[in-house]
């Protein structure tokens, strides 16, 4: 397997080793040794929980900046519906679209069509699916990675339908290379993303295929530039000449990146947001329950993509904007309906590659050795205080026991077992008075 890439990086120079990230990580993928945090790449599911809690601002998302797009001849923005909920109540999607053009994009893609297409593909798939149920949505990359890492037996429940942003990327390349006589690689399809997880899913899709998109720019990255343009007199923007592209944001089923599935029956369709709740439901599914549910739409961020960690607006304010946009949504024009019908008949929406369970480092040893390690870990755990203080550098005593049993660390890292460890920690964490403390 190629080296796993992740949607953020830890800046070791900035890291003060204060363990907020380690304690918040839902898959226990972070260790803090010698005062510095590091990642166990196989366990990280790119949820981004660590990003927001770092008091030293040492963890940052690896999205791309607008400047990096200059190598392309034609740049197309595929904006997540979440983008349009970030601004004032009177800022219409058309205004936001204009601002994107003024920012340097050559076109703003009518992404609502791709979402509508995937909506139909999912509804069809659910109706024809022989089992196992429930099917689980794949548009949130964190959910796919969570299943790969922690629920390998549920891989078959992932809906085998490509995500809307990839369908959009494919069509962007096809359409504009045809219209403009450019090669597909001269055209940039750039996702405006509410989270770093989608950026990593573009860099390294979980199904091990290549993304149609060329990168993702975080909403927070362009927020100020867009806001500035919204507050200027918009009529004077040079992009006003491109009226045909203006209304690309009007037709979303707001908030839900995969639409609202009007054709799935209410009692068999369950939308879920927030990792904690999703993990609870996944535990039930793994025990063979919830088989009467046909489709679970899961988003790792609380409140869905409007609550993504690269959004700027408070989730609840964004949601109220979302409701306003939904209420004002115009009836789709016939051209839109025709285009959707035409594309639905001619395009393939199936997921390109199978998603496989992520191979863990422990797979390299045989079952007998794994059982031995487990027994060793249990033995070691009995000697630990079970306080989960984290001073050993692992998030819980159990993780420390597992690390020791697999020879990844020394048992003496536990302060209860070794006085020297306290002296060592004192040295690592003894610093002069600091300008700011979180």
């Amino acid at each position, binding site marked *: 397997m190629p080296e796993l890439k992740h949607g953020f990086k830890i800046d070791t120079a900035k890291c003060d080793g204060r363990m907020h990230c380690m304690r918040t990580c839902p898959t226990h993928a972070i260790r803090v040794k010698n005062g510095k945090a590091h990642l166990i790449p196989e366990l990280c599911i790119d949820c981004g929980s660590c990003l927001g809690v770092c008091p030293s601002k040492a963890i940052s998302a690896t999205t791309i900046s607008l400047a990096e797009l200059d190598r392309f001849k034609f740049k197309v923005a595929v904006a997540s519906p979440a983008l349009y909920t970030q601004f004032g109540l009177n800022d219409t999607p058309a205004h936001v679209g204009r601002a994107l053009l003024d920012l340097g994009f050559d076109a703003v893609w009518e992404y609502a069509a791709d979402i509508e297409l995937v909506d139909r593909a999912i509804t069809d798939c659910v109706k024809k699916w022989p089992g196992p149920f429930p099917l689980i949505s794949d548009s949130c990359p964190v959910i796919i990675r969570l299943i790969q890492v*922690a629920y390998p*037996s549920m891989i078959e429940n992932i809906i085998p339908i490509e995500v809307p942003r990839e369908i959009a990327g494919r069509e962007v390349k096809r359409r504009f290379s045809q219209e403009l006589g450019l090669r597909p690689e001269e055209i940039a399809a750039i996702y405006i993303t509410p989270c770093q997880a989608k950026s990593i899913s573009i860099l390294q899709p979980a199904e091990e295929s290549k993304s149609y998109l060329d990168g993702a720019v975080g909403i927070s990255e362009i927020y100020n530039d867009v806001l500035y343009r919204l507050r200027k007199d918009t009529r004077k923007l040079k992009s006003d000449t491109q009226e045909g592209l203006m209304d690309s944001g009007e037709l979303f089923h707001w908030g839900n990146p995969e639409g609202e599935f009007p054709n799935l029956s209410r009692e068999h369709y369950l939308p879920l947001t927030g990792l904690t709740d999703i993990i609870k439901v996944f535990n*039930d599914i793994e*025990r063979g329950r919830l088989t009467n549910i046909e489709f679970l739409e899961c988003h790792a961020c609380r409140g869905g993509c409007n609550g993504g960690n690269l959004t700027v607006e408070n989730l609840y304010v964004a949601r109220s904007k979302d409701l306003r946009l939904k209420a004002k949504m115009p009836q789709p024009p016939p051209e839109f309906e025709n285009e959707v019908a035409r594309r639905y008949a001619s395009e393939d929406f199936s997921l390109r590659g199978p998603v496989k369970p992520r191979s863990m480092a422990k797979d390299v040893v045989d079952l007998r050795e794994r059982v031995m390690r487990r027994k060793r870990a249990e033995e070691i755990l009995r000697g630990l205080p079970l306080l989960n203080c984290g001073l050993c550098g692992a998030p819980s005593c159990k993780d420390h026991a597992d690390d020791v049993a697999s020879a990844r660390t020394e048992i003496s890292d536990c302060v209860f077992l070794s006085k020297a460890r306290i002296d060592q920690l004192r040295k690592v964490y003894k610093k002069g008075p600091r300008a700011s403390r979180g």
Partner: protein
Amino acid sequence: MGGELLRENFQLQGRNFDKAGEISSEIKVILKELGIAAACLRRAVIVAFEAEMNVVMYADRGTVTLVLTDKAINLEVKDEGPGIPDIDLAMQEGYSTASDEMREMGFGFGMGLSNMKKNSDEFCIESEVGKGTSVFARILLDSHA
């Protein structure tokens, strides 16, 4: 069937619905930590869960024993309960003696025993009315990789 690698015993409490599923969850965690292949894990957890539910629904108490060998996951479930008068009938899909109350709680659709059998490579059940029931299920490790 290969050397025994691991043996774990679990106690089950009858009619304790809010805790129902905890033992199969524990078994799941153990097997998952040991890196058991996804398909086997799924089958073993379904069998463990159905067994646990049967004990919780009908019996006073019971035990689950998980025995892992190089080749298979074995689950032995024994309970002290009413027993099953007609095993062939009980094994049929949809046959259930669950009370309305149990059904309202979402249990007892008569799929338990047949589901356990479907998800095992070897399955046997013995029961004595008035004493209890014991179930043995084996899931081979390499058959569904």
